[in-house]
């Protein structure tokens, strides 16, 4: 066994040891081990997921050899679950792999409690009826559920879970937390101790832009009744003020200050997204509340009290032109304030825990620290029950998609993927599954789809004939490349859900393999 740290190096650089530990602790159940399912698991097994359980009642046929890499000629006639499971095990011996030779549809009917043992269930190639049943079971048991389906050149991925909360959402472009619009006393006094008009030209061009902006903003506020620039004209003037202090074109720190001056103008306080989170009714905590909501409750108190309307400080600063000494001093000032804020939040967390009758040390300090560092970036994802979406989709959205050029193919695929299940329930095969019935299947699918649209409240809406034809042409084929793509997306969402890092998709991802104009639909 290679040292796991080396083997997983390239992914540890993304989700860190904590994320990796979460993956290694989790247990995943796969329903149906065709290529969509086996490719989903392949990516998770490689990454070192804790355990997998493959559920499939079918035997390997000749046709499976043409689309599934996890079976070969020696598998023909054997349990597909068993073959796929043993090929997956080859990829990583650290993963516990087992299989159950049973049809998922039967398991859903006869043994619903089976699913509660897993962290997450990934259900592939299920038809609507089973999806709805499984969704209810998993929702009840609080097990994360993810659906994935490949169908010809189309497919979808959909997450279902009551609530997924994220501390480490890791957005790519997020404004740093420098508080230049609202500096705290220690930052102000550090700035006061630094002379902008220093004689030494080397020193002059190594004053960090943060200090320049704090000083110039302070100067501005003094002459403007305490206010910071707000109008376009004032902002321009402010920049001119900085420019006037520049001694030469090579002073990168001043250029950085001008470029970053918008950080002085930006409004104080928390974002509307965060406001919504602290106002959420879940922030009224009781003994059943999750750690996340206890932390949010503490954050809410902090913002209203010692935070003075602001979140705890993030504590890190970006690289900027500076002498080493001044940069390190600046870093320390930010660090110190961040640590003081953590202490304040921690005090509140402990007292809230006590109040709701929990062990006041039940949330570790490392979690509180991470929460404080990321408090501006919290994310909450809630997913509708599949049944609710199927019975009463968001009608205005649906109607918008149907008429929007960018969405019409994707929503057409969405409707048709549902229509093929209705079709199969009525005619005992998928449209175009058998060559002999192609001619009659096309009009049948067309009328099934219009019936469905009517039921959803989109009377009179029609889908493109070409797309209906295409769906019949697909004949429920599970193409390997489409399965690898859909399974790839499913596995990526699973990783985000389990590591509780990054943000999972909301709504239904519709894969469009015809021209790759895939879309997320929020219905």
């Amino acid at each position: 066994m290679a040292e796991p740290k080396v083997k997983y190096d390239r992914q540890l650089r993304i989700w860190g040891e904590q994320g990796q530990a979460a993956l290694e602790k989790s247990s995943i159940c796969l329903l149906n081990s065709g290529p969509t399912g086996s490719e989903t698991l392949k990516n998770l097994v490689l990454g070192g997921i804790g355990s997998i359980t493959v559920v499939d009642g079918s035997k390997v046929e000749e046709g499976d050899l043409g689309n599934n890499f996890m079976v070969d000629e020696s598998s023909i006639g054997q349990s597909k679950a068993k073959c796929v499971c043993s090929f997956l095990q080859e990829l990583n011996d650290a993963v516990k792999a087992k299989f159950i030779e049973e049809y998922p549809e039967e398991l859903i009917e006869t043994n619903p409690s089976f699913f509660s043992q897993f962290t997450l269930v990934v259900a592939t190639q299920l038809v609507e009826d089973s999806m709805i049943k499984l969704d209810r079971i998993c929702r009840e048991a609080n097990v994360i559920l993810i659906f994935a389906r490949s169908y010809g050149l189309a497919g979808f991925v959909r997450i279902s879970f009551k609530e997924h909360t994220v501390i480490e959402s890791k957005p790519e472009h997020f404004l740093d937390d420098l508080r230049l619009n609202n500096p705290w006393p220690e930052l102000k006094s550090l700035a006061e101790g630094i002379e902008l008009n220093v004689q030494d030209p080397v020193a002059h061009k190594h004053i960090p832009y943060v200090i320049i902006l704090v000083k110039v903003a302070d100067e501005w506020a003094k002459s403007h009744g305490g206010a910071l620039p707000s109008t376009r004209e004032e902002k321009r003037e402010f920049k001119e003020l900085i420019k006037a202090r520049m001694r030469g074109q090579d002073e990168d720190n001043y250029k950085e200050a001008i470029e970053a001056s918008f950080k002085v103008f930006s409004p104080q306080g928390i974002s509307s997204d965060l406001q919504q989170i602290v106002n959420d009714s879940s922030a009224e905590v009781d003994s059943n509340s999750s750690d996340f909501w206890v932390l949010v409750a503490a954050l809410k108190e902090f913002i209203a009290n010692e935070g003075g309307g602001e979140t705890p400080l993030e504590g890190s600063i970006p690289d900027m032109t500076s002498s080493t000494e001044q940069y390190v001093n600046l870093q320390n000032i930010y660090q110190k304030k961040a640590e003081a804020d953590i202490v304040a939040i921690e005090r509140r967390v402990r007292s809230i825990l006590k109040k709701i009758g929990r062990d006041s040390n039940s949330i570790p300090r490392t979690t509180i620290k991470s929460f404080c560092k990321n408090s501006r970036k919290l994310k909450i994802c809630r997913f509708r029950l599949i049944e609710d979406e199927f019975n009463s989709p968001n009608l205005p959205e649906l109607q918008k998609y149907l008429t929007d050029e960018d969405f019409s193919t994707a929503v057409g695929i969405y409707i048709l993927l549902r229509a093929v299940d209705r079709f199969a329930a009525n005619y005992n095969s998928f449209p175009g599954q058998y060559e002999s019935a192609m001619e009659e299947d096309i009009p049948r699918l067309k009328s099934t789809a219009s019936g469905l649209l009517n039921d959803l409240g989109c009377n009179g809406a029609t889908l493109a004939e070409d797309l209906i034809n295409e769906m019949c042409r697909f004949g429920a084929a599970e193409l390997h490349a489409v399965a690898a793509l859909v399974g790839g997306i499913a596995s990526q969402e699973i990783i985000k859900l389990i590591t509780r890092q990054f943000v999972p998709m909301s709504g239904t991802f519709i894969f469009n393999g015809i021209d790759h104009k895939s879309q997320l639909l929020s219905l």
Partner: protein
Amino acid sequence: MADTSPQPSRSRDLDKLLLRPGNLVGPRFEPGPETRDDLQAYARVLVVGAGGLGCELLKDLALTGFRNLDVIDMDRIEVTNLNRQFLFRLEDVGKPKAEVAAKRVMERISGVNIVPHFCRIEDKDISFYNDFNIIALGLDSIEARSYINGVACSFLEYDSYNNPREETIKPMVDGGTEGFKGHARVILPGITPCFECTIWLFPPQVKFPLCTLAETPRTAAHCIEYAHLIKWNEVHGGTAFDPDDPEHMKWVYNEALKRAELFGIPGVTYSLTQGVVKNIIPAIASTNAIISAACALETLKIATECSKTLSNYLSYNGTQGVHTKVTEFERDKDCLVCGPGVLIEVEPSVTLQKFIYLLEEHPKLWLSRASVSHQGKNLYLQAPTVLEEMTRSNLSQTLFNLMGKVTRDIVHVNGTATKNDQKISCMRKLLVVFKGTDGVADMDTAGGA
């Protein structure tokens, strides 16, 4: 479920797409078993790179009806590959990637033939690349993409109206990933933008100014780069730094740590040291799977026209939700690589030696150490020595004679150019026109100059 069960066939699923007519297909799609059989029998695809994308591509193509594949990669398997390069096992570490990858796919899928090439892409003759119908790129370097792109575009010929000759178009599909992000694109030289037309999509890597490293380090990365770029040379003078030598890496790490302590800078770790020095790009299985699958699907569409094609660039980002976007980029009409060729007008009296010298001075080329070929015949080769000696006598002959006294024709040159202070090998297509020969005076089709 059904009344009639079809013949058991390995292409059960693929047949639906290849045997049935459709309305959302390419203009030359001919549904039927011949399309499938021809794909299996004749289509040849080269997979460039047998890493994260390459492993996926080989599997995907082999399960998408392609049976004649080649794979080229100069690397050997490392432990850090195993979290995503699913064709490799721990016991394969140290073996050539191309060979193991080819073997594993052939073991699993009968009827597929994969020829591995364990070498640099530059080691192959240009004609090697011309034997393939489609080239699929699974690379992580801009230089390698640029090289293959140059080779593929060198086959492109234009007719006298400056329209690309269809039979000379060498299609490429290109994938790339970084963490949760990636892209897949289709390049039809002469029709869609080539890699060089949109080179700006890859911004140059930001390097730290040396004075920051030497005088005002502020971050852990600054300390690491100081140890790597400055201190190493000071102490080890003659010995070149080898990023794959763990002793070298440890030395850099220790020096970086010392410097960080001296300046009070936090954050130097061994892992970060490796990341900075080797410019490690994080990589995971799922993104590679997504991007490769998109490339494989497009390869099938190029070969059969069984559906519409991606036109022409798909970007993917899975960090915040799932975002995909298709952008139709446009060709750079003045592209030196996929255009009709750089126009070079010379006197018929110019010798090959003089011609090679002219290339070094040419403001659009700056190409040194050029090897020259015409109509697939090597006029002069810089290396290897045997071939250099064989072609040396051509240097004193006139290019006009060597090219069979034609008035104008395409010549391929392969040499070294300097780009962003870096020497890169590249392939260029030149349209050579001999002054004062027949029909040259009213030559108005040399638009690529």
